[in-house]
């Protein structure tokens, strides 16, 4: 299992948590929005089946980091490797990598003109070219897994926020990804609905999915994460196993952040 790096301030070192080959590797990654330096010298690797939670104040680059991993944002320096493939300008590589990665957004981003079922089956049918009947069976199983099989033929506008987010998770899972990215999946939800989404995510983590989660849910991080990354001003400031991280944070910026939210 994971072990905390002895020197949380160290940067430029690739941290591999297990003996396995990491499934995501970011090396010396940098990104700017115009003149603004959003990501600075990011070095992260994620092992298969690892659950990494990324926390940090707003504007710290958490979302940008995970959006770079499936190329919704383009990094300008450094290297990103996903499952051995390098993310560059090669369109085929991008497509191949996106097939490995599922993503869940803060605003759900369900397709409002399609039913829950159609939202889930669209990509498997159109991208993976699998037969519709088979895909629909799988989609039904996924909906059962996220606990809302009875909503299959409703449109997103007819579902509650929590239900929508669970459909969004099912949609991402339908592509059978190796990695799931969660970009603040519960931030737009009412408190009552947060739990239902977190439960689904926990179940997913227990089933062995590799997950990168940007969230403010510290309870979730404590309970589920193998590793917590703290980011500020585009840097990874500190990381470690949750027990270590929450109890004995080293860096003053981390301590300040934790003291404000806990």
């Amino acid at each position: 299992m994971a072990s905390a790096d002895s020197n949380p301030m160290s940067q430029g070192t690739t941290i591999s948590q297990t003996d396995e080959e990491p499934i995501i590797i970011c090396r010396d990654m940098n990104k700017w929005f115009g003149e603004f330096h959003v990501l600075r010298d990011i070095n992260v690797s994620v092992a298969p089946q690892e659950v990494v939670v990324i926390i940090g104040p707003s504007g710290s680059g958490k979302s940008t980091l995970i959006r770079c991993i499936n190329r919704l944002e383009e990094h300008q320096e450094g290297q990103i490797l996903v499952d051995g493939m390098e993310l560059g300008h090669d369109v085929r590589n991008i497509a191949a990598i996106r097939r490995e990665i599922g993503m869940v957004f803060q605003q759900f981003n369900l397709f409002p003109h399609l039913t829950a079922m159609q939202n889930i089956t669209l990509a498997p049918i159109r991208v993976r070219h699998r037969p519709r009947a088979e895909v629909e069976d799988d989609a039904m199983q996924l909906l059962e897994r996220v606990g809302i099989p009875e909503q299959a033929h409703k449109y997103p506008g007819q579902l509650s926020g929590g239900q929508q987010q669970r459909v969004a998770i099912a949609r991402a899972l339908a592509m059978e990804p190796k990695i799931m990215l969660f970009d603040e999946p519960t931030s737009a939800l009412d408190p009552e609905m947060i739990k239902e989404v977190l439960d689904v995510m926990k179940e997913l983590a227990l089933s062995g999915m590799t997950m990168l989660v940007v969230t403010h849910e510290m309870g979730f991080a404590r309970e589920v994460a193998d590793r917590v990354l703290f980011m500020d001003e585009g840097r990874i400031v500190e990381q470690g196993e949750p027990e270590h991280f929450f109890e004995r944070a080293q860096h003053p910026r981390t301590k300040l952040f934790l003291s404000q939210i806990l």
Partner: protein
Amino acid sequence: MAGRQRPRRLDRNIAYFDEPPERRPPITEVGPVAWVRANLFGSALDTALTLLGALFLIGIISLLLTWSIGTANWYSITFNLRLFLVGRVEAFMDPRISILFLFIAVLAGVNFAAWSRIHLRLWAILAAVLLALFIIPWLIAGAIPPPLTWLAAGQREVTSGSITARPVERVAFIAGADEEIVFRLVTPADDAQLARLNSFSDGMANTLRNAAANRLASEQRLETVRQELAGDRLTERQRAAREAELENTAVPPPVHTSYEVGAHPLSLTLRSGDTDAEIVNGTIAPGEELRLTLPQEGWYVLEKRVPDNDDSIALLSASGLYPVFDRSFIREGERVFQYMRATDRLLVEGGRPRDAGGADLPMLGIIDHQYRGERPLADFLSLMLGPFLDQLNLGLALFTAVMAAAYFASRWLERRDSDQEVPLRRLRRSAVWLWLVTIPLAFLLIIGVSSGPFLTLSDPQLWGGLLLTLVLTVVALVVAFPIGILLALGRRSTLPVVSAASTLYIEVFRGVPLITLLFMSMLLVQFVLPSLSGPDNAPYRVMVALILFSAAYLAEDVRGGLQSLPTGQVEAARALGLPGWRITLHITLPQALRAVIPALVGQFISLFKDTSLVTIVGLIDLTGVANLIASQTEFQGLRRETYIFIAIIYFIFSSVMSNVSRRIEASGSGAARA
């Protein structure tokens, strides 16, 4: 909720109660009086506005009604209905257009079943309206006799003002078998009675009527002048002028006595128009009636003779004798003459009766035997409304019946396997397919395939009226819509050349008036597409202009929709690994189009109305027909009636379109707008 008892449990902290009884909202509706007070006369300003608006509405409506009942010549519509609907297309097109018409009824029925419910109550109302369309003409025909036709006979001329009418001894008319004609020789008691001969009349009877009316008018004027002179409200100059007027105005002797109207018997002869055989020969005395029953359908000739030494004018009222429209056209290479009775559309084909010298006999034609004078409501009903409804009712009833059959059949089929996961999904799919089938089928039926007997090619030059308007609109829409989408996508493209070209196209075509484009297309299209040259292909050249024009506008509408989409949609689709064109096809376009339905329908409606501009380049669309009719001899200069009629047609189609768009917006995955 009644019937469901919850276990009542109490513990220290929490009490579980029965669900509270459901309460209905309080009744807040008010009576009609309160409604009127609140909404129409709420304040002084409201009251003033209500009264002003009501006065305005009442004024406009009563003007329009008075005119359309009393004066308007709606024969220009009823006689030309085919021209309005399909223009001058060949006769072999009629069954094809009927098939298309009924197919559209099927399409409408299936689409209603798929996308929105029609309540039984609405069907009942429709059925009642249709039934009324059959019953009203029948009632009118039964209750209101058609108006009389006034005919005069004599040896002398009749003068009124500068008009001099000469007697016509023989006049030809058409009639059906077993019809009864009643002639009556009228002796008017005074000029007032003569002046009220408001109905169909020949030239001489009309001149008598005018002469009597003029005499009464000048008599009245003199009476007014005398009264003014007797009073003391005139200046010296006015008094002098009035006195001169009194001096110089001679009131002619009463018309009915000076022409001895109806003083002597008249000899009448009725001959068959085909064989010239005498049917009846008799004399009719003043005040007497002559009833004739006609043996067969066809032409007849009426001879009305006053003895040579007789100076009197005979005034005949005839019922069963009505003016006819005549027209001629080429059918299968031969010229066909058709004569149609104005009142009931009795149709006779073939040559007119001729005299011994071979010249056409004078005919009871609508041009010389128009309806004169103000028309009472009864005549409006029997002459205008009844025949008009009679022309429409069968078509509308068939359309509604077919639509209802399609509606209930598709609902029944849908309900038969109601265990579908998504209700209506299959029906909706079939409805969309039906649309995709209808449009090519429509063009197949309208254009034809070859010169052979099956689906003979029709001449585009003959397309006209509503048919041409709809063909132009639908073609322009169906072709311009995909082009518009491509242009919108092109304008947003990241490829600079594509984006610049699309932008240039859009801006150029939005910057040029449609009229200019139409003229240019008439002249320029043939350089690019030589096969579209020549007058035959004018409709196709016009289509090119309409397509290019509306594509630019549709592109801007679609682009607006694309721009309104949240970026998250594309991101989510990309994250799922969908390639760019699939994102456009499955994610952005469907949402963008749905978002701009109102703008698109607005564009469709304005395109539908803009097709009226093709009149200017010589096509005879709905507006062209309206102009054309004003140049027909029978309806010379009658523009008001025809323009009002086409305005109503344009309005009906536009409002159907906007109604459908409202339904689309509200229907189905309306959740998309949540």
